[in-house]
């Protein structure tokens, strides 16, 4: 009996483990995929990489510089 109660309790609490999937509204008829805004249209963080908001070229230039940090020959031996 005790074991049965234990199993029943485990099953009833198991639902608490569910990953929340329903935080989004139901799909509406005719709803199409949303589009993301471009990363360069954001304001740069105060203590982060800098670019001119809305300027794709300056964002790409700074991200290119950041990519070169993965290049140890250029990073270390410069």
């Amino acid at each position, binding site marked *: 009996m005790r074991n049965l109660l234990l199993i029943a309790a485990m099953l009833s609490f198991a*639902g608490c*483990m569910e990953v929340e999937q329903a*935080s989004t509204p139901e799909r509406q008829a005719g709803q199409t995929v949303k589009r*993301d805004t471009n990363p360069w249209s954001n304001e740069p963080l105060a203590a982060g990489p800098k670019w001119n908001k809305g300027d794709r070229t300056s964002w790409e230039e700074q991200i290119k510089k950041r990519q070169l940090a993965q290049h140890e020959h250029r990073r270390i031996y410069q």
Partner: protein
Amino acid sequence: MARMKFLCDAERCIECNGCVTACKNENEVPWGVNRRRVVTINDGVIGAEKSISVACMHCSDAPCMAVCPVDCFYKTADGVVLHDKDLCIGCGYCFYACPFGAPQFPQAGAFGLRGKMDKCTFCAGGPEADKSEAEFKKYGRNRLAEGKLPVCAEMCSTKALLGGDGDVIADIYRERVARRGSKGAEAWGWGSAYGQPPKGGAAPAAPAAPAAGKS
């Protein structure tokens, strides 16, 4: 125009799984979901064991986009393949179509419920407002909007995993291969994906035959 890609150098990957852990931590990925994982071939065979870190490769012509019945995928201006969880129905077609096994489905529930698809976003968030709480909850952190690169590539201790504009990381890899004496030039797909024909010559290094045995 940037075309965001990952490139993993099998000569350098030491199977530390740091990229996997960093991804899970940065994006607060749920239990049972690994957006990135390390695959090892010839496990335990001395001199032949190779590891490679795999996630969504943000394909230029993505098969997941082609098969999705609700058309929930889209591609950003810098070539990152993302999806809209509001539209995803969790059918799993993308999982079968993806050659890298990138799409993941949370199954942490008591009844094995398969949730909406989750995959690597190249740390670019999703279609919700950039850097918003809703975006973080559904898709994880948007590092591109902060002017940063994916955390897995940026924290890789051996710099085996490179992430960023395909042209730039291909140049880094090419120079690395040249410096270490060509090891790596025989990588599969080198000629078509990352090779550049020398001036007036043929494309470098034909792909080698795949090694026998998988683990």
